[in-house]
C-alpha cells in the first residue's frame, strides 16, 4: 500500500550481468584468435547446461522461472567456468563442472544471492581434483603447435576425443608456462634458462598474454561502469606483485619475476572477474582489500610451493570461507559513531 521511495533509478540485475558479459567479450575474442574456436563450443555448452539445470531446479522449487533466468547470473558463472577450463576440454568435463557449480554451489543454498562460495571456482576445483590429467592438457597456441587444429577438428576432438589420423596427442597439447616452470624448477633449473623455452612469450605465456591484456581491458571497463569497486583488483594485483617481487629479489634464480606472475595463468581473469563476484565476496570496502590480499597471498603460495600449477581457485574458495568473519570485523564507521 505505501512504499515510500516511489522512484528508483537502478540498473536491473540483468543489466549488471550483461555488462559483465560484455566485459568478457574482448577476452573471448583474443582467446579464439590465439587458441582457435574450441573455446566457443565450451562456452555454448556450459551456458546451455547452466540455464537448463537452473530452470529445472527452479521448477522443482515452484519458483517463477523467467525472472530468475533472465538475470543472466547463471550465464556469467558458466562463462567464467568455461574460460578457466582448458579450451579442448572434453564435453562431459564442461557439463559436470557446470552442473556441480549451478546445482550444488548455487541453487542448493537458495539460488542467487545466498551462495557463500563462488560457483565457478567450486566447479573448477571439483574438476581439478577429480580429473587432474584432463585439466592440465592445455593446447599450445596455434602459431606454436606443430599441427594447428582447424575449428572442425577441435570440435571433433571435444565431442569424440579422437584426433585427426596423423596427429599425436602431445603434438597438440603442451604444458602451460606455469606448469612447465614448476616442473623445471623441481629439477632446479635456473629460471632464466627455463623462460627461454618457446612457450614463454614476452611477459607471460606465448599467446596467452594477449588474452590477459584483453581481460585487463574488460576489467577496466567494469570499473569505469562502477559494476565492480576498484578495491578488489588493485589489492589483488598489488599484493601478488609485491610478494613475487620480494621472492624474486631474494632469489631470482628460483622465483619468476612479478610481471610474469601477473600476466600468466588466470591472475587478471581472477582479479577482475572471479573475486569481484558480489555474492560470495565481502561487502565493506576495507573487507574487500583484506579479501583480495588474502587471495593473492594464497595464490602465490600454491603456485610456488603447492601441488597445483595455478592456485587461484583454491585461494578464492578458502578466502570465501573467511568472508563472513571479514565482513563482521570491517564494518565502516557509522556517521556520528566513534570508531567501534
Amino acid at each position, binding site marked *: 500500500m505505501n*512504499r515510500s521511495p516511489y*522512484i528508483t*533509478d537502478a*540498473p*536491473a540485475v*540483468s*543489466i549488471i550481468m*550483461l*555488462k559483465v558479459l560484455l566485459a568478457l567479450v574482448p577476452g573471448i575474442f583474443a582467446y579464439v584468435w590465439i587458441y582457435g574456436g574450441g573455446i566457443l563450443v565450451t562456452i555454448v555448452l556450459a551456458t546451455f547446461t547452466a540455464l537448463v539445470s537452473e530452470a529445472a531446479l527452479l521448477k522443482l522449487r515452484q*519458483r*517463477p*522461472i*523467467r*525472472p530468475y533466468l*533472465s538475470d543472466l547470473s547463471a550465464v556469467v558463472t558458466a562463462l567464467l567456468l568455461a574460460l578457466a577450463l582448458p579450451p579442448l576440454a572434453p564435453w562431459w568435463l564442461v557439463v559436470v563442472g557446470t552442473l556441480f557449480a549451478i546445482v550444488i554451489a548455487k541453487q542448493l543454498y537458495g539460488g542467487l544471492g545466498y551462495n557463500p562460495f563462488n560457483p565457478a571456482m567450486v566447479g573448477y576445483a571439483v574438476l581439478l581434483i577429480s580429473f587432474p590429467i584432463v585439466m592440465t592438457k592445455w593446447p599450445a597456441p596455434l602459431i606454436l603447435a606443430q599441427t594447428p587444429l582447424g575449428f572442425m577438428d577441435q570440435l571433433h576432438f571435444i565431442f569424440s576425443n579422437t584426433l585427426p589420423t596423423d596427429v599425436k596427442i602431445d603434438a597438440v597439447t603442451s604444458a602451460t608456462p606455469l606448469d612447465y616452470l614448476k616442473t623445471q624448477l623441481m629439477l632446479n633449473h635456473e629460471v632464466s634458462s627455463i623462460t627461454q623455452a618457446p612457450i614463454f612469450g614476452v611477459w607471460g605465456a606465448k599467446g596467452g598474454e594477449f588474452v590477459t591484456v584483453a581481460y585487463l581491458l574488460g576489467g577496466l571497463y567494469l570499473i*569505469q*561502469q*562502477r559494476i565492480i569497486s576498484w578495491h578488489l583488483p588493485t589489492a589483488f594485483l598489488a599484493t601478488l606483485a609485491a610478494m613475487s617481487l620480494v621472492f624474486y629479489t631474494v632469489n631470482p634464480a628460483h622465483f619468476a619475476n612479478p610481471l610474469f606472475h601477473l600476466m600468466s595463468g588466470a591472475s587478471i581473469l581472477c582479479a577482475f572477474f572471479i573475486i569481484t563476484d558480489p555474492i560470495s565476496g565481502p561487502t565493506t570496502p576495507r573487507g574487500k582489500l583484506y579479501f583480495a590480499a588474502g587471495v593473492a597471498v594464497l595464490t602465490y603460495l600454491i603456485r610456488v610451493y603447492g601441488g597445483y600449477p595455478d592456485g587461484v581457485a583454491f585461494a578464492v574458495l578458502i578466502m570465501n570461507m573467511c568472508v563472513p568473519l571479514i565482513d563482521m570485523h570491517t*564494518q565502516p564507521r557509522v*556517521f556520528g*559513531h*566513534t570508531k*567501534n
Partner: protein
Amino acid sequence: MLTALYIMLGLALVLGIMLGISALLFKVEGDPLVARIDAILPQTQCGQCGYPGCKPYATAIAKGEADINHCPPGGDAGARELADLMGVEYKPLNAEHGLPKPKAVAFIDENTCIGCTLCIQACPVDAILGAAKHMHTIIASECTGCELCLAPCPVDCITMEPVAETPDNWKWKYPVIPIKAMPADKSRLIMNSIIQFASKLLLGQTADLLIHKFHGGVHRRGHKQLSTTLPIAKLAIPQACSALRQHVGYIPKVKSTSR
C-alpha cells in the same frame, strides 16, 4: 603385567587428587540461570504453564522439570529464545496449555460489579482498584491480560477487551512481496532499460554516483519546476476543517549499544 596396573593406578590417583583440589578452588554457588530464564518470560503470571507464576515456572525449567514450550503468552519467540538459552532443540508451543492470543486487557462492566473484592485478591499484579462494597475498576496499563480475575467474579462482569490498534501503537507490517512471474509489461520495462543502457553507452553519459561531501546520497531529478511557476495563492476558507492532535512519532530512548 603388574607394572601396567601400578601405572594405571598411579595415573588415576594423581588425576583424582588434582581434580579434588581444583573442585575446592572453583566452588560455584547459586545458579544465575533462573534469573536469566525469568527475564525471557513475559511476566503475565497467568499460570497457563501449570505453575503459579513466571518465577516458579523459571525455576522448574532451570531444574529441568518443565518443558520450554508451556508459555502461550511468551508465544513462538519466547519458546525459541528459551530453547537457545537452554541449548535444547526448539519445540513449537504445545496446545494443551492454550494458544497465544492477541494482547487483551480486562474490563469491568461497572453497572454489574457488586464490589466483592474477589477479583482484587486474584489479580497477580494488583491491577484492580477498589475496596469492599466500592466500585472496582481495572488499571488498563497495569493489566497483563492473565484472565485470573474472570473466574472468581460471582457476577461475571469482567470481559477481556483486545487492545485496539491506534496510530500510536500501529506497527509497520512485514513487506510481503509477491515474486510472481514477470508481468507482461514488466518485460517492456527490462527492454527499455536495455535500450536506455545502450543509449547511455553510446552517449557516454554515466548517471552514476558523483563524489560529494557526505558519504552516500543519491542524485535524482528535481521535478521542481512543476510547481514553481505560479506564486503562492491563499486558499479560500473550507466548509469544514478538522484540526487534530499532532503525532510526533516515537522518540527512541537512545541506547548507546557500542558494539
